[in-house]
């Protein structure tokens, strides 16, 4: 018998946790994005056309939304679980009749919730600079889900593997940040030298950004279906990794 109520309470606990510190978990990332917009809007001429019929600021907003969502989804599950491991209070969850899969669902669910809230916050704030429409809301939701879900799962993975906070921030600073900067948030990858253009096609974040940009603006560099497929595969793989670690009890049930 699955423990639905236990799953719901664990999910609620995770959401409650980040809402208790919402200045840091919601407001700060929104303000960071606002600063990007402020800087880029004053440095780069907004009349510059990035994709057919899309000026720079409008081009920028969907990418920044995805970047903020994925970074925050990762931060949520990784910091919550790692802190619980370091404090020792993770045992209260491990003692309860909650399965590995329920554990995974609750943490990844909360990561998606935080990503979603940050995404909405960024969109609202960006309206001051450019009102970006949502042309394909269903595709958008699907991509946001894959994006936050994958990063939530990777957050779990890093929180399980890490032995100190250093390891978490290393993963954040040497993997998540570079991959999101190189995913075509700030530029169109067709402006890149051929090598980097090819390399970008191996970066899953590129598909998330490009696909999400399509669901907003209706234009993209690769087909949105490709992006959704890549997103789905990325989500399945990262979830599989997280679930394997949970099943083995790696670093949790020694």
């Amino acid at each position, binding site marked *: *018998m699955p*423990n639905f*109520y*236990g799953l*719901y*309470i*664990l999910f*609620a*606990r995770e959401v409650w*946790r980040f809402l*208790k*510190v919402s200045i840091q978990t919601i407001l700060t990332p929104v303000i960071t994005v606002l600063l990007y917009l402020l800087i880029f809007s004053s440095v780069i001429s907004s009349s510059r056309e990035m994709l057919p019929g899309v000026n720079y600021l409008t081009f920028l907003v969907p990418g920044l939304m995805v970047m903020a969502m994925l970074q925050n989804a990762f931060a949520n599950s990784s910091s919550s679980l790692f802190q*619980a491991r370091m*404090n*020792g*209070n993770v*045992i*209260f*969850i*491990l*003692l*309860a*009749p*909650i*399965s590995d899969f329920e554990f995974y669902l609750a943490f990844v669910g909360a990561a998606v919730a935080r990503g979603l809230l940050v995404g909405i916050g960024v969109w609202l704030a960006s309206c001051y600079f450019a009102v970006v429409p949502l042309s394909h809301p269903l595709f958008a939701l699907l991509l946001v889900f894959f994006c936050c879900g994958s990063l939530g799962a990777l957050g779990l993975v890093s929180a399980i593997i890490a032995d100190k906070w250093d390891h978490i921030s290393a993963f954040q600073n040497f993997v998540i940040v570079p991959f999101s900067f190189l995913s075509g948030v700030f530029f169109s990858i067709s402006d890149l030298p051929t090598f980097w253009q090819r390399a970008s096609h191996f970066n899953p974040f590129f598909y998330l950004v490009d696909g999400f940009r399509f669901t907003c603006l209706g234009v993209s560099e690769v087909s949105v279906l490709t992006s959704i497929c890549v997103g789905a595969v990325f989500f399945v793989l990262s979830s599989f990794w997280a679930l394997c670690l949970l099943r083995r*009890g790696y670093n949790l*049930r*020694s």
Partner: protein
Amino acid sequence: MDAVSIDGLSKDYGSLKALSEVSLTIAEGAFFALLGPNGAGKSTLINILAGLTRATSGRAAVLGCDVRRQWRKARHQLGVVPQELAYDPFFTVREMLTLQSGYFGLGKENRPWLNELIVALDLEDKIDTTMNHLSGGMKRRVLVAQALVHRPPVVILDEPTAGVDVALRAQLWSFIRGLNAKGHTIILTTHYLEEAESMCEKIAILDRGRLVALAPKDELLSRYSWRQLRLQLMPESTVVLPDVLEAKRQAAPQGELLLRLHREHDHIGEVLAALEQTGVKFSDLRIHEPGLTEVYTEVTEANNHA
């Protein structure tokens, strides 16, 4: 049915055998003490029962539910107070208890019980305090409450009184005794042997991963066959003992004579008569019956030589 049954349980950490081939059963309703020196494997055993650690080999079950195969049921039956003072700094006492009860699938209907726990453990003043603002003893009490949110029939307390002051210790013990009286099986570890001796009916002693004793308390105590006779000597008394008694003599402070006597073979009356004959004069006499401390020391030392 047994509250806990453990069969050939081993746990290796690399080359270290934290537990080797431990088998024991604990009857339902028992008040059971698990004793042993630091690093004996007590917490390891408890963690295996709780599903926090996985055994290398062997089986463990709580009320007949295997802790690996029927883990969900086993966890419902078990409440564990961990040895480490773990707490969640984000939440208040009430929030913690509500969450913990939720993890076990219990919602609003469990409120009255949570309130009862809060009163019983004297936490009313602290329910809206976040955990990191509580003192160590208070955190310990919250841990006890958390372990009991789902009314588990089997309760394991891993050193519940470590770092707890005298008054709170007495209070905790009377609370735990109350639980036992209501039918909960109690299993505890402690390094205060007098506590175990005065409370528990059955005792297991672990040492370096091996079960070195498992018996009802009285039987264990009677197994130790020595007692001490301590005499307060008169100032003028000189002590020259015949060889038979000299062999039983133990080191004692100035002005005292200490003899280690066998419970069955040495008759106190005969010993005193023999002393009288050699001219030993004493003003006072005390007999020290062995307690758990002596048994414990003997058993664990025997294991060290084994």
